């Protein structure tokens, strides 16, 4: 048994709408799995179910233990979540924000100890943020903030990382930086990563496996070159794409079929 995360027949209904229907998925320990799918497919909801933030029917196991029978604190020591739009209070310093990631290791009424400060310091250093330590969050750029949020998740020292659109706010170069960094982090610290992403080419290049959701159901699953085919993508994204395989890497390019407006 080396499943870090497992979902069995998970169904989520919010306000009468079925967001997820009988989703089953597993993530092996040390693996990077990326959930892809069109808007509204249920990617974020699946991550939230794994983090135990919503109620669902079915079973979600984290390291073999049912999510709903764990306390928030136990769960927070297993899973660190990076939401798509994290709240970053402008007046906090980078150090203060990263230290908040230590919450699951700090007694409810206590404040952080030396161990916590060292852990935060390691996370700050690992993400190359040392020169920002005392800067206010309000003074950072989008790319810098993204790294600060990652540092907070890393300081949590949880073996599983859930990332919701970790690169959506970044430019091309910063996207690559962030994903390379994540790949390095998970190899160094033996992390398990489950992410949700929109950019299919990037998703395919960094994940070990892809999970394609559409309409709240798993419609394809497997290695990137098996999932990212023209038929699958055009069927579920309602898009016209060209898929290029080159040296084991898959590129998904949007393609305009004919010029509809000719001058």
């Amino acid at each position, binding site marked *: 048994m080396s499943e870090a995360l497992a979902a069995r027949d998970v169904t989520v209904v919010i306000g009468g709408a079925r967001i997820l229907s009988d989703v089953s998925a597993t993530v092996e320990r040390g693996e990077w799995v990326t959930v892809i799918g069109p808007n509204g497919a249920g990617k974020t909801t699946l991550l939230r179910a794994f*983090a135990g*933030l919503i109620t669902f029917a079915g079973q979600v196991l984290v390291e073999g233990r049912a999510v709903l029978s764990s*306390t*928030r*604190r*136990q*769960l*927070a*020591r297993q*899973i*660190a*979540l990076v*939401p798509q739009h*994290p*709240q970053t*209070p*402008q*007046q*906090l*310093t980078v*150090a*203060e924000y*990263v*230290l*908040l*990631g230590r*919450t*699951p290791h700090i007694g*409810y*009424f*206590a*404040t*952080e100890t*030396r161990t916590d*400060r*060292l852990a*935060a*310091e*390691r996370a*700050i*250093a*690992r993400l*190359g943020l*040392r*020169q920002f*330590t*005392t800067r206010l969050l*309000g003074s950072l750029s989008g*790319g810098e903030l993204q*790294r600060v949020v990652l540092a907070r998740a890393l300081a*949590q020292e949880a073996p599983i990382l859930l990332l919701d659109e970790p690169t959506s706010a970044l430019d091309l170069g*910063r996207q*690559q*930086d*962030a994903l*390379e*960094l994540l790949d*390095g982090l998970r190899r*160094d*610290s033996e992390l398990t990563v489950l992410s949700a992403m929109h950019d299919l080419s990037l998703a395919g290049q960094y994940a070990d496996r892809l999970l394609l959701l559409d309409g709240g159901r798993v419609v394809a699953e497997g290695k990137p070159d098996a999932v990212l085919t023209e038929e699958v993508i055009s069927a579920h994204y309602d898009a016209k794409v060209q898929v290029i395989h080159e040296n084991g890497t898959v590129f998904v390019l949007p393609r305009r079929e004919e010029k509809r407006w000719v001058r």
Partner: protein
Amino acid sequence: MARPAQQTPARVTKTCPLCGKQFGCAQGQPGCWCEAVVLRRETLAAIRTAADGCICPACLTAFADKERSGRDRDADGPGEVKATTIWAKALPHSAVRSRGVSALWAIIAVGFLAGALLLGLATGAASIGPLSIIASVLSHLQVFHVSSPLGTVDDAILWQVRAPRVVLAALVGGMLAVAGSAYQGVFRNPLADPYLLGVAAGAGLGATIAIAYSTARSDIGLLLPLAAFAGAVIAVAAAYVLGRSAGGVHGTSTLILAGVIVALFMTAIQTFVQTQRSDTLRAVYSWILGGFGTADWYAVVVVVPYIAVSSAIILLHRRVLDVLSLGDEEASSLGIDVRRARLVIVLVATAGTAAAVAVSGLIGFVGIIIPHTIRLLVSPSYRAIVPLSLLAGAGFLILADALARTILSPAELPIGVVTAFFGAPFFAILLRTSRRMVM
């Protein structure tokens, strides 16, 4: 950034604090030579105690060698070494910390409260100087063997009239400011004050009913605080139950709305009772405006337990309040049971506020202005806001009460007039000069 090989980090020349040699340092950027040296956490801690900041390659290698020889002797598994791989050598660890209450601000706040206490005790018709007050305080503390310079009359004025009043004002001021900061943190709303969930309306209704329907005028002194307290607690409980049953998961705005609805309902009943008994309007109105005209040691003893327990519990939650500033979802994913934390904080803040309101009436403004002043002047962290609000709120209300007693002496101004009249311009100036975001 993440690709060290493609970047040349800015290098500076530093002097090693251990051996005095010069060396190049990339100041924490990826690609610094120090990344090649892998250390255990304990070794890093040992370096930190020996040197503040980066050390030179020779010294660092010496530490690494010493660690390796120690490790061979201990014969640790290789897995542990990997798990504690450390890169952070450039940063003095003193920079990674949360800004709490600095010593300077603690001294300023304590000094402000002490000054306010002294001024409050010295204010009044009988002139008793600050030095005599200090001597009298020392004489009452048996250990110092100082004889009181005051006569029996002055002594009675100081200890039976002024002291309970000043102490009560301090307790109420501290409580309202702390409760205000707690409400602002829990609801992530800069406009939140201790009366947000209907405390004021509930206490007002309770007091009105007590004043309007009490038959014997003599027992009103006991009945009124009880009725006000009960009304406040019932109002907040009703708001909480309504907000939870309607709001489901999405916490705060439904709760605030429920508070508004409960307050409106209770105010309607209060107005109805007042029109039925218009002869009691004046008494009700003077209670609502608030004040410490009837303060005695009995009132102090009655409210101390509530205020002490309530502010202690809120103080213990100061870090939790910081975590809550990230939003419900993120606070949950960091291991906080958000609903329970919010319930506990609202509950104790309400109990403390209700006790304060019961003995002093509805004193506005303190719960909003004091926490925001601390937030703007000191730090946005609740580790600073909560303890400093306690001290500053206490001092502020003592001063406000001293003014309320003197401006129209021998008549008394309602204290709410003073807090708003002096508090509002002060806060306006602060807001303009600090030019920071409030929350």
